[in-house]
């Protein structure tokens, strides 16, 4: 016989706070005639703010209630309601607990009942109120039961001294205790390990893992809090199956590349859709210029996600399959990242302060030559070429000191970055109104030479309000984040190959420049780029219950993201080679404003034995973006670079604006049959202004089904250890929101030549080849999964198989330059397949009163393949892609090693006819790069009394390009890695490093071939201790003595160690770019 108890449990039931501070309505007005007791109690709940706690089966025994009372007290009202009931009530700390009226003492003929008393506490010894205590029996309705009071105490009349008591409480494991004659039973309940019933945020609503038909991975606030990161997405690294997160560089705030279940788009964007509290959030940088140069790749930009404070986030839910994402229609193809911010909780006012501080250094460095080794290499290079070093071709061998030594790597990127983060949150609430106010500050320095760093200030206010009759509900939040990020004008990592004997100063103390050969790093330290970003995010949602099962809701959102950039180049920092030393400054402002309105209607109805839930809604969105970029030169003085009026020459680089509108209707039907069979269907029709007038609308949809076979009788009989078993499947079509395409690509337009005038006159220049014919790009997604829970979900296992097929690829397709342009936006019928397996395992390994050890592991085995590409051999991508291979392969010429006879790399781009060539047939070596073979992580969490130790190991199996200097050993004024020590020197030497050369002869060309051959790719797999967090929470008794609500101390580390064979800086960020930081911080959290 299945026990079916429905509990209405509200957050306030935790009852952690002493009474007094929370205001509850003191008087009640009621007028009911023949109403059900349940209805009356709910009315009382609304009027008083008291919570209800009852057994639904029990309430069915209640008689109709007739009550007429004006401004009565709670007790008066309850007395009337329960007057003739077979039930009684007790008031337990703002909760009305309903229980069966204890039968009057029976005549002496029966055995005398025993009164059993005791206290129920949790693992930490905290009393648990509201725990159900009952006698184990075949029919629970025939046996007495009770609930614990505010202090966890209970008392129960038991007829049989040999009976067994059952203690149960939501979120905790039930416990059975045989009386065996005892009359005092103290119980310690363990927190339940089942995550199955935790809230899962999905599109336009919430569900639980148990009832979900789609594939969703969740990172909770706790995992975020353990990582001292500034970008919330960074906290996802390695933790979620199917979610690959790689940083653009080690810069604080740099773009994070997030790929959910592979790369669907061949050439377009593969970034997921980000939605913050229901409002789509643009994750592409607004930068006009960055430390990587004015027109750097977008991947090096500041990420707007950096303007979301990780401490404000309650959970990050990643939607992966079609069932979960299709309701986002045209934007769901690459998955959806839902960021949900923390909501205020009911309770007395509470101030929570969290402060940590620490430092970071680069994770890994490379080994470079010292002066002696470098000079020997250079001399050998000249000797090999038979060239005499002179002041013009080799100042390092002639005019520079021959003994000075500077470790440029250490000097330029070997610093220590200071990190400080302080956050404070005040929250308070009654049952009707809750609010939370938070503010914080974060400082993060850099490892660079020079004084750079970022400061972030954040503030947020969230309010939730329910009307007294419970029908109207309002959620509103407004948050503001400002980040002032001052960074270098160039990534110093790119300068680490400066000659070790280079002296950046002249004898007179002025900066020394050497032609245009390289930048003086000390000149660069006088320059800076200041990025000031401001993010205002407001959202409001108003819902109204028209009928108990019909709800109308309107969500509205507003997001304004601005980036003000200022880059200063004082005259003193300018290399005179490039012209008279002249100060200049760059100014840029960019703003992205989004408005969103989403009306929605939800309807729940019983259909047969199941529950049908229907959702219908619409979206109206507008995003307006503008960007202005001005360069100013000819300044009156270096001191007033921030003053545009002090510059006599102003050049406008960019003045862009566009408006984007988006509109849709969407719907969802969900049918849940007895919690065993669940069907879910979604549909969305989207219109976008990015397309030509005839191609604006597209239809998307998906269906998902789940079967909880563990609820079936046969499963319970055959597999008693299996406490949860679910099979689910989904299939659907989602679209791609244009990836990298622009907003008016269907139009051929001209724009001002801007900074390039003809004399004083401006001209018009074409911007693009317009194409009115392109349409939505589609991705068809299939997902099959099994979810298993054993031993009351102490072991939870999920395995997913996914397959996505994307075609109709919307790309900036390369066209020959003879058309006037390099590419055109169009659909391309290439087909990309992504499939893979995702596994996640959550276990509670040990759970005793004092010690808990839980683990979570994920493993993703992705596969990415180009299935079709019409006329590939004849296309511009003949040398890039290969059918049947991953879309991220690197192709190169055959590399057969260093020729022992002449020391040159052999193979290379030589066509069969012996000519230098990039012809596809020459590019016969393929390297699977940019895409891991598998990746995942292992989280362990150990708790002993107040101590908590968490460590997370991240692993990836992959191949990447090693760090290989851009020029052959000995060529140019650039230092080499110590690999140069094993260079070819004499005929017969067998080695992997070519001979030294100083010129641009064939040895240079063969080296160039070598750097583009598979010879430079190597194993970049790694195992990394991503996060280590150790904390100690003071026992509650101690905390109370201190008149606090909580006190916790902790140390945290990020990227603490890495095991890898990678030849270069960091395997996560291959190439010559600032590696990520190894960070160690310590802090405390205090709740008042």
């Amino acid at each position, binding site marked *: 016989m299945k026990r079916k108890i429905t509990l209405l449990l509200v957050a306030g039931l935790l009852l952690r706070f002493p009474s007094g501070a929370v205001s509850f309505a003191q008087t009640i007005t009621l007028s009911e005639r023949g109403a059900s007791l349940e209805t009356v109690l709910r009315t009382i709940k609304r009027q008083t703010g008291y919570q209800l706690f009852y057994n639904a089966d029990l309430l069915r025994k209640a008689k109709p209630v007739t009550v007429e009372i004006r401004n009565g007290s709670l007790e008066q009202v309850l007395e009337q309601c329960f007057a003739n009931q077979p039930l009684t009530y007790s008031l337990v700390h703002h909760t009305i607990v309903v229980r069966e009226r204890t039968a009057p003492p029976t005549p002496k003929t029966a055995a005398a009942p025993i009164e059993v008393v005791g206290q129920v506490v949790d693992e930490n010894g905290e009393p648990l109120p509201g725990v159900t205590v009952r006698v184990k029996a075949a029919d629970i309705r025939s046996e007495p039961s009770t609930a614990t009071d505010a202090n966890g105490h209970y008392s129960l009349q038991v007829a049989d001294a040999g009976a067994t008591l059952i203690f149960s409480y939501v979120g905790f494991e039930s416990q059975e205790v045989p009386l065996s004659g005892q009359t005092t039973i103290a119980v310690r309940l363990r927190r339940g390990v089942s995550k199955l019933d935790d809230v899962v945020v999905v599109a336009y609503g919430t569900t639980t893992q148990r009832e979900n038909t789609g594939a969703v991975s969740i990172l909770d606030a706790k995992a975020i809090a353990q990582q001292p990161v500034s970008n919330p997405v960074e906290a996802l690294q390695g933790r979620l199956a199917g979610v690959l997160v790689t940083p653009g560089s080690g810069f604080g705030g740099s773009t994070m590349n997030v790929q959910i279940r592979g790369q669907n788009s061949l050439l377009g964007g593969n970034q997921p859709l980000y939605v913050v509290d229901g409002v789509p959030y643009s994750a592409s940088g607004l930068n006009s210029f960055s430390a990587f140069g004015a027109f750097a790749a977008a991947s090096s930009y500041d990420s707007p996600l950096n303007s979301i404070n990780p401490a404000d986030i309650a959970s990050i839910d990643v939607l992966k399959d079609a069932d979960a994402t299709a309701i986002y229609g045209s934007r769901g193809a690459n998955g959806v990242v839902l960021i949900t911010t923390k909501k205020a909780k009911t309770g007395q006012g509470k101030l929570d302060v969290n402060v940590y501080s620490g430092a970071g250094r680069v994770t890994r460095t490379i080994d470079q030559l010292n002066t002696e080794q470098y000079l020997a290499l250079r001399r050998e290079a000249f000797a090999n070429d038979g060239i005499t070093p002179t*002041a013009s071709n080799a100042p390092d061998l002639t005019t520079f000191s021959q003994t000075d030594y500077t470790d440029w790597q250490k000097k330029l990127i070997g610093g220590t970055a200071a990190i400080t983060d302080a956050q404070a949150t005040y929250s308070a609430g009654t049952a009707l109104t809750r609010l939370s106010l938070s503010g914080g500050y974060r400082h993060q320095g850099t490892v660079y030479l020079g004084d750079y760093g970022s400061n972030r200030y954040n503030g947020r206010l969230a309010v939730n309000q329910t009307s007294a009759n419970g029908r109207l509900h309002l959620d509103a939040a407004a948050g503001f984040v400002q980040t002032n990020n001052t960074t270098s004008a160039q990534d110093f990592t790119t300068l680490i190959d400066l000659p070790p004997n280079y002296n950046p100063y002249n004898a007179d103390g002025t900066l020394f420049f050497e032609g245009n050969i390289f930048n003086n790093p000390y000149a660069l330290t006088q320059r800076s780029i200041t990025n000031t970003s401001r993010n205002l995010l407001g959202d409001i949602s108003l819902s109204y219950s028209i009928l108990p099962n019909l709800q109308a809701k309107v969500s509205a959102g507003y997001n304004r993201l601005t980036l003000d950039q200022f880059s200063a180049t004082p005259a003193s920092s300018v290399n005179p080679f490039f012209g008279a030393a002249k100060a200049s400054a760059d100014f840029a402002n960019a703003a992205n404003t989004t408005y969103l309105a989403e009306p929605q209607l939800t309807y729940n109805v019983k259909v047969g034995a199941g529950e049908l839930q229907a959702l219908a809604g619409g979206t109206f969105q507008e995003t307006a973006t503008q960007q202005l970029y001005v360069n100013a030169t000819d300044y009156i003085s270096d001191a007033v670079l921030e003053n545009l009026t002090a510059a*006599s020459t102003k050049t406008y680089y960019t003045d862009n604006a566009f408006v984007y509108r988006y509109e849709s209707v969407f719907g969802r039907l969900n049918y849940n049959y007895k919690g065993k069979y669940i069907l879910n269907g979604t549909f969305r029709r989207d219109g976008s202004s990015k397309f030509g007038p005839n191609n604006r609308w597209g239809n998307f949809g998906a269906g998902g089904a789940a079967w909880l076979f563990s609820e079936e009788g046969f499963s319970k009989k055959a597999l008693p250890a299996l406490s949860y078993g679910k099979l689910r499947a989904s299939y659907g079509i989602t679209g791609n929101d244009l990836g990298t395409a622009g907003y008016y690509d269907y139009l051929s337009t001209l724009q001002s030549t801007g900074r390039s005038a003809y004399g004083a006159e401006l001209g018009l220049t074409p911007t693009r080849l317009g194409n009115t014919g392109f349409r939505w790009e589609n991705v068809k997604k299939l997902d099959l999964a099994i979810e298993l829970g054993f031993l009351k979900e102490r072991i939870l296992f999920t395995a997913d198989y996914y397959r996505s097929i994307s075609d109709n690829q919307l790309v900036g397709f390369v066209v020959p*330059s003879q058309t006037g342009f390099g590419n055109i936006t169009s659909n391309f019928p290439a087909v990309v397949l992504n499939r893979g397996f995702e596994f996640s395992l959550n276990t509670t390994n040990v759970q005793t009163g004092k010690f808990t050890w839980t683990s979570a592991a994920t493993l993703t085995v992705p596969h990415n393949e180009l299935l079709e590409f019409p006329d590939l051999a004849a296309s511009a991508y003949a040398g890039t892609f290969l059918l049947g291979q991953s879309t991220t392969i690197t192709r190169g010429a055959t590399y057969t090693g260093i020729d022992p006879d002449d020391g040159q790399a052999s193979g290379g781009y030589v066509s069969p006819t012996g000519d230098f060539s990039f012809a596809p047939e020459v590019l016969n070596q393929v390297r699977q790069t940019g895409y891991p073979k598998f990746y995942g992580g292992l989280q362990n969490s150990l708790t002993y009394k107040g101590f908590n130790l968490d460590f997370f190991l991240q692993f990836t199996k992959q191949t990447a390009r090693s760090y290989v200097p851009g020029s052959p050993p000995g060529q140019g004024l650039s230092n080499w890695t110590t690999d140069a020590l094993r260079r070819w020197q004499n005929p017969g030497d067998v080695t992997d490093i070519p001979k030294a050369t100083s010129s641009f002869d064939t040895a240079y060309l063969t080296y160039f071939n070598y750097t583009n051959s598979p010879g430079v790719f190597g194993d970049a797999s790694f195992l990394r201790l991503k996060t280590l967090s150790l904390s100690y929470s003071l026992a509650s008794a101690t905390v109370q003595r201190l008149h606090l609500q909580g006190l916790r101390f902790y140390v945290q580390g990020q990227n603490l160690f890495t095991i890898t064979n990678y030849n270069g800086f960091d395997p996560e960020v291959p190439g010559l770019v600032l590696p990520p930081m190894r960070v160690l911080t310590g802090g405390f959290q205090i709740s008042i």
Partner: protein
Amino acid sequence: MPALLGLSACNFLDVGPPPTEVVDTNVFRADASASAAILGIYIGFTYSGTNSPGIANDATLSTFLGLAADELLYASPDFDEYRLNQINPAGNGPSQVWSQAYTSIYQCNTALAGLTASTTLTASLKTQLLGEARFLRAFNYFYLTNLFGNVPLVLTADYTVSGKLPRAPRADVYAAVVADLLEAQKLLTPSYPGSGERTRANQAAATALLARVYLYQQNWAAAEAQATAVLAQAGQYSLPALGQVFLANSDEAIWQLRRSGTISTNTYEGLYFVPASRTTAPTNTYQLTSTLYSAFDTLDDRRTTWTSAYTVAGTTYRYPSKYKQRIATPSAGAATEYSMVLRLAEQYLIRAEARIRQGNVAAGVADLNTVRSRAGLPALSTALSSANALLAVENERRLELFSEYGHRWFDLIRTGRVAAVLGPYKGTAWDANDNLWPVPGAQLLANPALSQNAGY
């Protein structure tokens, strides 16, 4: 209700044209925007920023072809691929020159179509703009075919057509160039458009380029006729003193390009040839070859006016100094030199060669002597043999037009003298296939109909 929703939907998604751009169909409806579109083509020749090679941009032809021939050296090995005539098909040079030229041709093609269709422009402006577009298209194709040989002949803006075109025979390209220039001659007037500065094409510019095209085609009579037509305009064009030639709007200028008033660089030639420092050894500047310097007669004023030298640590470094200003003076727009594309001296030299080729050696040598006399050199005998007279033309062109738009390089190739002259100079680096640049590797991939030049 759904109908109402649908209607509002249509309106909601209609965002209108981009706020910061002009839709192409509107450009040629108004005088101002039509003129701006043509100006945009000139501006394409002057884009700022180093390392963006183009036909007229970045002094590409003056520097790289100077290295490729025997005029220049570079102080670092950065451009050895040009000096050693081993140009990388994947490199920046061929790729940028090719794509910039075709972008410019696209602009010309769009303008020609838009202007022809337009009924709302002032008639005289429409004629003039059509003439300029024709001239500019011819200019691009002339250099494209001389650098790369056969090139796709794109005469439409429709990418579905133009993207598939194979390389057209050089003769077809030349025929199109001649047709454009003849048409431009008819459309343009002797006066310069716009401000009156010699920075936009007028009739004389079309005629002067046509004279050169006929010379390259060895159509001697036509070359002579066109050069004569330019030289006849003595009131407008004359040979000023050597020091005046490269000044803005000099009497010799037939067509010059000028940089934006807000760009501190004066001319690319000035930026690259005039050294930043005369007291340190050059690291990244161009130097004259001793071969070229020693070819100047000691009496030749061009040797002293158009070349300069400085000495560091006992070594003398020489460089072309036709342009004196490296960068503009601090106050904006103070550039006093414009980049010379077509000038009168070349017309004398064209006519001299055309006349000698037609057997009229005396008249040809007389034209040579006009140029020589400005340089302070004695007159050559009009009784020279035809062969010697032609060698004298080659020599005079070398000394008059050095480090200008690759004249030396193109002359050696068109006269078939390249192997004889550069073979001994370059040694083993010289290869018979080196007279053409490689078609950019990326273009071969983007358009399978293209083929590579021999030797690459």
